[in-house]
């Protein structure tokens, strides 16, 4: 019985955060752009999400006749499934996790690699040149950033001596990993931005050049799934950063551990949105160059130094 509650919690908390993020992002962006943002529907415009959802449900769910129908329908689902699956290994609190995998980080990296399929297949099945260009960009970008996303986490794994998220949280009892692993954190953060193709790195969508890129043919709730999937991705990357670098659910005892976990996650999400508000989109070759020429050597260097220091003090 307790297990059912945990599964429901792990499923519903990220989903509701992701849905709420649609409102949070619009309000925060408006704050940073000296505007007010949606404030008409319900208190502070909170019901804007519900209104948007109703609108999405009533929109015509159109599958283009020139598309590859089964793949087209399947693609948005893959995104949701891979991201939601990853939440199952993240500890929301002591004992509040679906399964304590001893290869949690590998599970996360594998799932986020699988997430590329959603975008590539979606862009391919749309049978539209802009979608295809978006999908190709997404695959190249995500393959690039996947490499040192994994490498940047290896420092944490070495320090905690475990791939399990739960053990990594417990290993941070005497200090968060962001201090010894600051370079790793920065690299992971940038890789996470690229992995969720969030705004400074939203090159697969690039509405200025590609007209929404890989999801330009999607409408109705299929588009909604890509939309919520993006916010779920932010929630996931923020939750993982909170777990790996900011001590997860560890925190002062006067509030429950789940609160500390969600609080850290929310703060990191706000940083994501701040980056969206402030930074312009780089050119495509700049993004690849930045990845291969700066971040990859940085991640390797971080790995080398962490290993050397750990061996020295052993």
């Amino acid at each position, binding site marked *: 019985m307790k297990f059912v509650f945990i599964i429901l919690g792990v499923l519903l908390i990220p989903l509701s955060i992701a849905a709420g993020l649609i409102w949070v992002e619009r309000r925060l962006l*408006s*704050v*940073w*752009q*000296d*505007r*007010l943002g949606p*404030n008409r529907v319900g208190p502070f415009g909170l019901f804007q999400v519900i209104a948007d959802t109703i609108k999405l449900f009533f929109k015509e769910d159109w599958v283009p006749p020139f598309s590859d129908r089964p793949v087209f329908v399947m693609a948005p689902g893959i995104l949701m499934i891979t991201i939601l699956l990853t939440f199952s290994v993240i500890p929301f609190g002591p004992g509040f996790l679906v399964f304590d995998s001893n290869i949690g980080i590998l599970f996360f990296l594998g799932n986020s690699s699988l997430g590329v399929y959603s975008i590539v297949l979606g862009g391919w099945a749309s049978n539209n040149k802009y979608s295809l260009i978006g999908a190709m960009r997404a695959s190249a970008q995500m393959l690039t950033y996947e490499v040192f996303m994994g490498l940047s986490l290896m420092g944490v794994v070495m320090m905690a001596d475990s791939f399990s998220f739960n053990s990594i949280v417990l290993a941070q009892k005497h200090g968060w990993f962001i201090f010894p692993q600051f370079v790793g954190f920065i690299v992971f953060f940038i890789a996470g931005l690229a992995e969720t193709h969030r705004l400074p790195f939203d090159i697969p969508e690039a509405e200025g050049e590609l007209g929404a890129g890989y999801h330009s043919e999607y409408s109705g709730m299929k588009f909604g799934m890509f939309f919520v999937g993006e916010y779920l991705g932010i929630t996931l990357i923020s939750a993982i950063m909170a777990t790996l670098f900011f001590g997860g659910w560890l925190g002062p005892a006067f509030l429950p551990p789940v609160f500390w976990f969600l609080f850290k996650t929310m703060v990191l999400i706000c940083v994501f949105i*701040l*980056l969206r*508000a*402030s*930074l312009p989109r780089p050119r495509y070759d700049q993004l690849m160059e930045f990845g291969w020429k700066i971040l990859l050597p940085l991640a390797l260097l971080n790995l080398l130094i962490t290993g050397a220091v750990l061996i020295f003090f052993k």
Partner: protein
Amino acid sequence: MFSILRTIWLTFLHIFHKTETIEYPEVKPYLPPRYRGRIVLTRDADHNERCVACNLCAAACPVDCISLQATEDETGRRYPEFFRINFSRCIFCGFCEEACPTYAIQLIPDFEMAEYDRQNMVYEKEHLLIDGEGKYHGYNFHKEAGVDMGVKGKGEGKNEETPVDVKDLMP
């Protein structure tokens, strides 16, 4: 690198800035007196129509939204028989106001003209005519110059001289 961090920080500081948004239906924005909004036809101080149906506004209108028909009353004074502005076409450029020789047609700071039925966007003369003088008080075109309309005698206008006696040789 530093400039990126500085950008992020400066954007963050916008939390403490005042918002520019005016919450429109509750708070009305300030419109300057010369704001170009709804078009009106004004009257002079004697409560007569200023418009002399010269068609200059219709000629100046870049989107051809003004249409009117000139006619005369028993004293020979010209006035529009009908005067119609299609506001679904109007772009509020104010060229008609600039073209008007009698200050009859004027743009006023009112923009709340939304309608559910497009046909209601077509304003007839009775919708356009207002009782007041608009922006130019005390101006009466017929008192300045021009033919006698029963407003002034010949050569008595503000902008004209007494007529020259052509049979007189004196300078």
